[in-house]
């Protein structure tokens, strides 16, 4: 898999174009439901349980989930898979926040509305800075992963593959808004879940567990260790990273506003439950590599390499690459579309409308929204094209988003805080967390960021607190 393409470039083009036409077609079809700006940005605020659960789950399943989970398993063993799964707790806990979010902001549109309400202009600007860095690095790392995926599986050049995936996602998002995003997320979530079960099931049928365990215990015993300090730190670091990502980002807040009030808490809870087993189901196949005699040439290609090998053993041959491509494309598209929509909503409402103070007339909204979505897409393309290791920017954003956990909780549920202390905690937490990233290791960064911010936020309740206006 890592050494040569699993299918021809022509087949790769055909699959991505067919899937792309499907998503764009559905985007145009569902986009007709968006008659107003609120319809475009928030799908009419009436999304039901099935679509709500699926969109939250699918958005959180990224190519990182399916590609990095095996790497976590390969490097950190059983704890690595469990560490990744703790990211689902963010979705589950967010379910508890949603009723309060809807109560506090009955006509809310973005997460920026909350930060401006509770922490004023400076807090809002700080939030915008952090969330843009995080969201853009997530978006760009997905685009880069798409280019890498198409190159590895089909031989299509990185630039062409990355461009193709971005163009497809930009098109159906701009035609259909959140209706298109949520609708396609449902189909993509089914494909992802079925694909993971199919591939994982094949691995299980080809694996003798007793022999496999013996092999790992002999050659890679650290992967089975219970007391593995770095892995245990990774568990809590990942969990807090997940909290920070979900609690602050407009991808989730827009969904909280889009779902029906009675549905939203259950949908987020269910999405977390649906997401929890995925890193384990996708990741364990890396542990099967050694016992099955599969040679891993490139660590970041562990998942597709093992998947292709077991499907080859099962006589599926050429279908292997096709299935892997479809599952990974769906996992990328389900996140890219959400990021495009949520980021452009923030730029439209918070930056264009809020910071620049420009009124957006209803009749010109769709044109403006389309322009912003295309603009974000172009920016993502420009940042992805040089193939910089943007994924590192995503990981570095861990302490930044981690430092927002307690300010969100305080803003939602507390009556009085010292706002300056909270904001100081965000800044200091971010700074010290990033320092920890480079000096102590990635698996400490979010712990430090969230921890420092927590201390300041708790102090803000005790030292000269003022009631929220």
């Amino acid at each position, binding site marked *: 898999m890592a050494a040569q393409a699993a299918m021809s470039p022509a087949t790769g083009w055909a699959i991505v174009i067919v899937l792309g036409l499907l998503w764009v077609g559905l985007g145009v079809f569902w986009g007709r439901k968006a008659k107003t700006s609120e319809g475009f940005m928030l799908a009419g605020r009436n999304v039901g349980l*099935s*679509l709500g659960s699926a969109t939250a*789950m699918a958005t959180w399943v990224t190519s990182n989930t399916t590609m990095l989970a095996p790497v976590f398993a390969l490097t950190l063993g059983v704890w690595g*898979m469990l560490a990744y799964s703790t990211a689902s707790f963010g979705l589950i806990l967010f379910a508890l926040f949603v009723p309060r979010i809807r109560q506090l902001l009955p006509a809310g549109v973005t997460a920026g509305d909350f930060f401006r309400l509770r922490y004023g202009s400076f807090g809002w600007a700080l939030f915008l800075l952090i969330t843009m860095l995080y969201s853009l690095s997530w978006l760009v790392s997905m685009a880069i992963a798409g280019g890498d995926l198409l190159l590895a599986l089909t031989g299509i050049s990185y630039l062409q593959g990355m461009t193709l995936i971005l163009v497809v996602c930009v098109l159906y998002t701009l035609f259909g808004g959140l209706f298109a995003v949520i609708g396609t997320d449902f189909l993509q979530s089914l494909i992802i*879940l079925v694909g993971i*079960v199919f591939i994982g099931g094949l691995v299980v049928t080809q694996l003798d567990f*007793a022999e496999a365990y013996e092999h790992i215990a002999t050659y890679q015993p650290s992967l089975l260790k219970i007391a593995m300090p770095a892995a245990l730190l990774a568990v809590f670091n990942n969990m807090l990273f997940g909290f920070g990502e979900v609690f602050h980002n407009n991808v989730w807040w827009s969904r909280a506003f889009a779902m029906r009030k009675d549905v939203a808490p259950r949908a987020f809870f269910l999405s977390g439950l*649906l997401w929890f*087993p995925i890193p*384990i189901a996708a990741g364990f196949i890396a542990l099967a590599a050694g016992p099955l005699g599969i040679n891993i040439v490139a660590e970041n290609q562990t998942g597709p390499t093992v998947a292709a090998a077991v499907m080859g053993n099962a006589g599926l041959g050429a279908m292997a690459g096709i299935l892997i491509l479809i599952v990974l494309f769906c996992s990328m598209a389900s996140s890219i579309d959400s990021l495009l929509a949520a980021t452009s909503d923030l730029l439209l409402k918070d930056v264009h409308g809020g910071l620049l103070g420009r009124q957006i007339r209803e009749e010109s909204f769709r044109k403006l929204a389309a322009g912003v979505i295309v603009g974000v897409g172009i920016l993502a393309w420009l940042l992805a094209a040089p193939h910089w290791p943007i994924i590192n920017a995503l990981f570095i954003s861990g302490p930044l988003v981690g430092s927002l956990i307690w300010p969100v909780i305080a803003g939602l549920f507390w009556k009085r805080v010292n706002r300056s202390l909270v904001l100081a905690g965000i800044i200091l937490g971010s700074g010290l967390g990033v320092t920890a990233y480079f000096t102590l290791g990635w698996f400490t960064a979010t712990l430090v960021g969230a921890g420092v911010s927590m201390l300041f936020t708790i102090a803000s309740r005790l030292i000269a607190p003022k009631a929220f206006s």
Partner: protein
Amino acid sequence: MFSPSFLQGLIVLALVWTGLGALALVVLIVRDWIKGTLW
């Protein structure tokens, strides 16, 4: 070390759970569609 039975149980549980998740989504969307509460 994690025991062989724990590891096997965890993997099988994760796969079954993932599969049930797909089934749950299908059941939910059929239910929402019948009740007219999709979106």
